[in-house]
């Protein structure tokens, strides 16, 4: 539980200036563990340490796990340098997952920055169960046009009936889409609020404003689900770093229904 398994790097692709996607397979051609979209694993970079990273791949791929990661600390910068064939440690999967059981509803996925990574896995799941849902919409905000993740894949998603709305904080002359915060896209995206499942992942400030917009658009509180992030070291509720009021983000989360954490979201420095 606290000891990793060894995985091999299959590929390491630079997505944007500071974000990369790592594809890993268990050494000795073993099957990767089953997981559900929204769950995370601890990735260990030799000699540097571990970091909690959400799985961004399709849960139906039995032999690999992929991760889209922002290089921001020692461990993630170490992972960024890995090449095909290098070995790392993986523990998990841990935590709760996106509640992808509400069939027959619209699903709106709202992402900010690298927050699209855990939703990427959910999106792949939704597309493989496309007939179970009505509209699927992705609202995605980035800082700049070059920060937009998975831009090649997006055409495929659109072909499979996913409506994609992008916005950037700062545009350049190449940008044809919206400019501004992602929360501005919400009002127009909600057509049948009582039948909408909303999945959110991004910076905490974005989450708060996005929730306000969803509630204003009359999306049911129970149908809003949020990915939370805190320092996680053990991933099993022992080390205390991810305490968030009454919750351990690692085992009670990282995916929470809004109704379970709305009181905590209002408290500063919790």
């Amino acid at each position, binding site marked *: *539980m606290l000891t990793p398994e060894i995985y091999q790097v299959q590929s390491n692709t630079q997505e944007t200036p500071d974000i990369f996607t790592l594809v890993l397979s268990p050494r000795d051609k073993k099957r990767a563990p089953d997981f559900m979209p929204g769950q995370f694993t601890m990735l260990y970079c030799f000699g540097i*340490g571990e970091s909690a990273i959400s799985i961004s791949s399709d849960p139906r791929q039995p032999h690999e796990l992929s991760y889209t990661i922002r290089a921001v600390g020692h461990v993630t910068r170490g992972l960024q340098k890995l090449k095909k064939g290098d*070995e790392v*440690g993986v523990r998990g999967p841990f935590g709760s997952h996106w509640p992808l059981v509400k069939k027959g509803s619209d699903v709106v996925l709202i992402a900010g920055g690298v927050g699209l990574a855990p939703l990427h896995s959910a999106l792949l799941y939704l597309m493989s169960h496309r007939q179970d849902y009505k509209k699927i919409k992705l609202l995605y905000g980035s800082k700049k046009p070059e920060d937009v993740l998975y831009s090649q894949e997006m055409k495929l998603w659109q072909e499979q009936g996913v409506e994609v709305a992008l916005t950037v904080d700062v545009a350049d002359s190449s940008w044809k889409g919206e400019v501004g915060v992602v929360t501005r896209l919400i009002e127009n995206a909600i057509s049948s609020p009582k039948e909408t499942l909303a999945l959110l992942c991004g910076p905490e400030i974005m989450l708060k404003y996005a929730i306000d917009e969803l509630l204003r658009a009359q999306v049911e509180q129970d149908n809003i689900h949020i990915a939370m992030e*805190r*320092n996680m070291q053990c991933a099993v509720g*022992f*080390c205390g770093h991810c*305490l968030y009021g009454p919750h351990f983000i690692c085992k009670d989360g990282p995916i929470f229904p809004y109704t379970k954490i709305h009181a905590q979201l209002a408290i500063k*420095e919790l």
Partner: protein
Amino acid sequence: MDVPHFLCSTEQFDRLLALIKNEGYKLLGPTLRDEAIVYDELQSASDLPIGWMDEQDPGRYRLKRRNDGAYFGYNLGQHSWKQFLFPPKEKLWSIKKESSSKLAVFQEVEPAIEKMAFIAVRACEIQALLIQDKVFNHKGASYTQYNKRREQLFILAVNCTRSVNTCFCPSMNAGPHVTQGYDLALTEIIEENSHYFVVAVGSERGSSLCDQLKLQTAESSHCDKAYGLVEKNSMGMKRRVDNEHVHEMLMKSWECKRWDELASRCINCANCTLVCPTCFCSDTQDKVSLDGQYVERWQSWESCFNLSHSYLNGQSIRSSAQSRYRQWLTHKFGTWWDQFGLSGCVGCGRCITWCPVGIDVTEELDELKNELDAKT
């Protein structure tokens, strides 16, 4: 009295420790060092701080000579038993590099587990052990090394017939009567012409030791006397926490001004979390060999008073001292209930005594409540 009770003389007690030791247990108990009671290895009963007592107040701890030969005439020092079950530093695993890209397998550490006997465990400390049992065992995971040490543990408990000013176990439902989780529980009785222990039996192992010592069965008068001494002590403790309502109160306290006032005194030293017998936060570090080819993963105690505790993406979530003190107090007395179904505080008072600036949690809880009451 539903459990068997025996009488034990001081000579028989000395033999009791020898018997436990002969059964392969390492004896750990209170000893005298650097003018404090510290838990360490005992060779025999003579290593106990016999004839000593402690005085404790917020930010103050002193040892004094007693005018009798009491074996257990003191209460608690800064040490708690958690150091033996959840050590301050513990190696979790190690791994080697086999080539520039390949790793060998992760070697999980199998610690050599010693059979331990804790001598003179107080009621509040047993409650603390039971709390840590819950923390380290839930439906998703269990802390293997902790459990291996815990399973073999022998607990010789002592009922407190005195307390210090910082004690408040009765209001936390954690003492001073030892009621659970022990093998043997002693109450020391010192009278003009006699000095003996009333021994309650809490397990088969405990029972077999009493048989080996051929202890005399206690009369109900002895049991009543022992109970009375502990009960009198219980009634005498002045500090208290409103354990029934404190959780609810704290969940309304997030914006209280008292947190600012507290932060102006708290020096963020983390002493309270280190002396606390239930605090469980830990950190991990990688220790890398000089040639960079071998790594050990170590776990060590961590405190929510450290900025690094809430580090995330280049900054600390709880960057103010207010928020860190609030985290500790609201967790210990409040959200602990949500997580484990009971309070995280056992009323041992260590955090009060060992706070260098004498912050008293019971007083702070009262002040928070007063501030909230004044608002309504």
